[in-house]
């Protein structure tokens, strides 16, 4: 039975991803749609991060430390892995010492 659920999940998720990627093979010329799509990655990633990140760890305080560490390092254009590692480290240190 579980495999039926998993099949439905996988099928729906794949359709969502594949239809826009295969249908729109021509460049979209409309400047408003172009602009809309330009903003999508940033607004989407932000909406996923806030406020969810504050409740991802054992305490809001440690999460806040993670956010600060990530924002500061990202501001100085550090790599994805550096920023992610620093956020984890900040959370760990705050939870360990406070």
């Amino acid at each position, binding site marked *: 039975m*579980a*495999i039926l*659920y*998993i099949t*439905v*999940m*996988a099928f*729906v*998720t*794949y359709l*969502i*991803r*594949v*239809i*826009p*990627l*295969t*249908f*729109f093979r021509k460049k*979209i010329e409309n*400047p*408003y749609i*172009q*602009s*809309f*799509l*330009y*903003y*999508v*990655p*940033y*607004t*989407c*990633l*932000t*909406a*996923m*991060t*806030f*406020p969810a990140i504050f409740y*991802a*760890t054992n305490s809001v305080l440690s*999460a806040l430390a*993670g*956010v600060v*560490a990530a924002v500061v*390092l*990202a*501001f100085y254009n*550090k790599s*994805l*892995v550096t*920023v*992610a590692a*620093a*956020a*984890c480290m900040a*959370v760990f240190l705050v*939870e*360990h010492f406070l």
Partner: protein
Amino acid sequence: MKRQDFQYGLRDGVPIALGYFSVSFSFGIMALKGGLSVLQAAITSLTNMTSAGQFAGLQIIIAGGTLLEMAATQLIINLRYALMSLSLSQKLSGNVTLWQRFIIAFANTDEIFAVAMSHNRELTFSYMVGLQILPIIGWTSGTACGAVAGSMLPAAINSALSVALYGMFLAVVIPAAKKTRPVLLMVLLAAAISCILYYVPLFQGISAGMSIIICTVAASVVGAIVFPVKEEGGAK
């Protein structure tokens, strides 16, 4: 296949794969508790490549929900991928063929999309395949390891690892927001709407997946109207 593009892709996929391993580890633990076998848990991750979608799907399996409910939930939570795929379709190199798009679509996850969009060379099929392989392996093997090892990791480590993916999101958003003011403003708008939907009691019924869609669409529409980007900005 262009060998160098493929290698660039692999390299950029390493941090994603590491982050995925740790997050899917916790999915594996939960899946086993929910009654899935190790193999079923691993297959779920291999075939879905989503975080929120899988976590929600697992809840439905545990609760014994209907298949229709499963399909509807996945549609809502994962609808943001349609927006991402649409964005990605605009940035992909013109040489990418239809069947290559069918392959690329499979693992167009939040993080892979984010890295692909911030890639400042031509987005080729070779690069995309290289970028996706390690995260797929990381996500699947992390799930299997979590299911097998159970909750052996100390809570402090789990807690710290849980911000890894958010850290990666910020690493994509912040530099862009620093560079262009409209991005900064729209990102703040998205965060504000997201917080309103989360904290205002009136909106409690809105699922996390739906909230992401609302924030993304609202902030991006405002951005497109107030600060339309000039030619080629659409694919940056």
